[in-house]
């Protein structure tokens, strides 16, 4: 029972982090390691900044 609740809560946390885009950096680093193993990945600050600035040119449409 306790294990089920714990795994449920872990699932919710996983979901919230994924939906909010918090995991984008982790994903990027993993991909970067495979594709450019000889370059260091960007720091979190650099990555998030670049991501935010890109979002400027791509506004997410919100509906009625």
């Amino acid at each position: 029972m306790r294990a089920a609740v714990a795994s449920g809560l872990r699932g919710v946390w996983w979901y919230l982090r994924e939906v909010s885009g918090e995991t984008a950096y982790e994903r990027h680093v993993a991909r970067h390691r495979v594709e450019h193993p000889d370059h260091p990945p960007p720091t979190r600050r650099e990555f998030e900044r670049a991501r935010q600035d890109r979002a400027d040119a791509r506004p997410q449409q919100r509906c009625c």
Partner: protein
Amino acid sequence: MTTSYRSTPPSPDSPEPPRSRPSALSIGIWILVAVVGAVCWGVVALVRDEHISAVWLLGAALGSYAIAYRFYARWISRKVLGADDTRATPAERLENDLDYQVTDRRVLYGHHFAAIAGAGPLVGPVLAAQMGYLPGTMWIIVGVIFAGAVQDMIVLFFSMRRDGKSIGQMAREEIGPVGGAAALIGVMAIMIILLAVLALVVVNAMAASPWATFSIAMTIPIAFFMGFYLRTLRPGQVMETTVIGVALLLLALVAGGWVEDSSWAEAFTLSPETLVFCLIVYGFVASVLPVWMLLAPRDYLSTFMKIGTIALLAVGIVLARPVMENAAVTDFATNGEGPVFAGALFPFVFITIACGALSGFHALIASGTTPKMIEKESQIRMIGYGGMLAESFVAVCAIICASIIDPGLYYAMNMPAGALGATLQSASDAVASIGFTVTPDQLQAAATAVEEDTLVARTGGAPTLAVGMSAIFSDAFGGGGQAFWYHFAIMFEALFILTTVDAGTRVGRFMLQDMLGNVYKPMGDVSWKPGVYVTSAIVVAGWGYFLYAGVTDPLGGINQLFPLFGIANQLLAAIALTVVTTLMIKHGKLKWAWVPGIPLAWDAAVTLTASWQKVFSDDPILGFFAQRERFSDAIAAGEVLPPATNMDDMHQVVTNTTVDGILAAFFAILVVVVLADAARVCIRTLRAGGEAETTEVPYVRSEIVAPSGLIPTKEEKRAMASAASGGDDGGDRR
């Protein structure tokens, strides 16, 4: 993710996976769902002369959704569209960490729902409740199953097969330059009206309410704080920032109550005209500033508030089991003389419900970011169809909220201010004149319960919804607190309407820059400051004009503009359905073209009838030009007609009705142009043998193994396990 692709010849004819026979258990469960749904429908439709519980409506809705999702949607996805999980999606083929990103289906569902859900399904059903709860509920449920969800899923499918092209691009490439241009202009014009009407809802909710104005104003500094926190202090820590933001938001909400009782109250008691000015400035600033400062953090807040509140509302309805006070069908459904919006059930209930049953705007989302992130083709059912079912469920909750409050209070809140007069007595008399009763004391008591000065003529739908929600919440969760819940509901709606207004202004600016860039190159550069300022100003001026006209309209802005918004949204749906029906025919699927074709025929009939009546009806309460003639004749005779109180009002009515009438005609003409152009393409295709070249991207085999629906089936689990043991991480990342 894999980076090399094995190209194989086009997919075999039957992309369907081998089917296992349904188990006896599954057959039993689906029979049970069908029976429960049918019983709920029976109670909703047949019980008369006594008030039924709102839970029956929820049961009818959920039972119908389950059956439609399991059977109709799956059939469309497999048979009609031929969604093929061996075919790589654009996210897999073009993955670039930017637009194209393979995304877990459950996460993408969240993104897609957050993008499509807004104030429309909350406001429309509240207004449609004037015809009783039955017509609205029936259209919300039947409409979503056969029209709205079908549109969203098919648009998503065709866009996905074209690397995520927008509906405008598809119209241009698959129909032609004329149809494409008409679709593009339609999208732009419709967006302007949409933003104006949504902003009008917020203005009506905030006007003369210091509590609401204070708490909503505070969302701006809170968003700034969150933006800077995420940018400089804790880059990327979205959850942490959102938790802080929500806490501050609730504090602002409680503080609103203190402000109302303090000497600050006066500073936050603003007239509608002042609020319009504030919103216009805000919209301009939000469109010009970088998104991380204001727009992105607001979006986090509003998304979490939106989903949390809707979930809370569904739980609240089940716990409180409120009783429907509204009639199942009112006389206004047939006589067309309803005070909230004019016109009879056909076509106006379908226009007014708008977003909860069929929303053209969703076609923009379903052909925007979502198709670029989808992992497997068959997931269009869960995301496209399932996302729209959730939106429809929101609309059912909204019609319940509007129908559990006393009908007398409902009309006192939603009739035009001019008809209700200045006092509680005159409002009570006005309500009595249309056959309902509410005493001045009851009106006062209702306002006092939610700590507002008055609830009379609080049009726009948001306050009505908030009264209904506060009754449900305070009943379900005990402890009263009606005033808190009322302002909570207002804040929740205002928050995501404002998010739509600033995101919409920005999207509108990008569209305009894109269009003007064809004429004068630098305009197309989205970082060229003069271009940014000029186009932002044009977009803001566009919706600002309608907002101001709506706020000052003597006939009641929402009463005049909401039908225009509904028509615009449904006409956009007609454009989207036309594009996908044409595509079905070009793909040689004439046999199945009725799947989007029937909703298209229905939607075209509804909206063109409504536009026709709005333009040509001789009845001055229905037709814009008849209304105009009546007022201009009176001006010529030197008379002032109520609800206008002076000559300026009279001239304003003439101006507004002229603009509204021209717009209604203009929208209808755009759609007729698209329909005619599409018919030309379809006929040409059929004459040439029934198939034509399209812009569909050729088949590439997929390397990803992932489930199709929410819960993986046994076979899918096995396939994922074997893919994972093969050393490939292309499976479900959890």
